[in-house]
């Protein structure tokens, strides 16, 4: 496995990269397979949520945004589009599909938080798993 193990590799950089682009923290650590999997799953959920909710699922005025924002870069990129659509097409709060789409994007945010922690911990404690297996 071609993992980044040099002393210069920073767990904090992996954490920040994982927030900015889902999967980028693992790519930074040389785990390209997992990086692709996480990017595909999280960005896929965000796009699916956006489509299900008619494009109006990202609203910084709603509490859901506190979960969505953990998906980092993609959420911040999609927010102005969502705001534009909300203003021009209106929001139907009673729409079940919008609710489902919002949930998709919120779960994507929480999953990226999990991925960020994984990227950080795997770089900060690279021998942890081997030690656990020894025990």
């Amino acid at each position, binding site marked *: 496995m071609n993992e980044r193990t040099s002393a210069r590799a920073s767990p904090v950089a992996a954490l920040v990269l994982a927030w900015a682009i889902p999967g980028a923290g693992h790519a930074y650590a040389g785990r390209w397979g*997992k990086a692709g999997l996480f990017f595909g799953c999280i960005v896929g*959920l965000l796009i*699916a949520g956006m489509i299900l909710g008619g494009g109006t699922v990202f609203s910084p005025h709603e509490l859901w945004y506190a979960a969505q924002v953990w998906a980092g870069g993609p959420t911040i990129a999609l927010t102005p589009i969502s705001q534009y659509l909300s203003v021009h097409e209106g929001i139907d709060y009673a729409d*079940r*599909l919008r609710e*489902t789409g919002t949930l*998709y994007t919120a779960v994507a945010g929480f*999953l990226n938080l999990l991925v960020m922690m994984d990227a950080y911990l795997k770089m900060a404690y690279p021998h942890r798993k081997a030690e656990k297996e020894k025990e």
Partner: protein
Amino acid sequence: MGEALVNFFAHLVAISNPLWAYYPLCAVAAVVYKATKFDEPRLIARAAAHFFLSVTAGMFALAAVFYLITLVF
């Protein structure tokens, strides 16, 4: 009561039920969660399938219990 439960499950898995939208969400959550735990693709797939089936079966069981309670009262 048995017939009522069958009708209830038929309604749960009906195409018109929006519950279907949550299965892909649960599947993706299972894959991402288990990919943070395991490194081998085979182990990830197995653990994710186990997680998905456990959550789905658990939710169905919980739904059945709550439905039965509503029938009693």
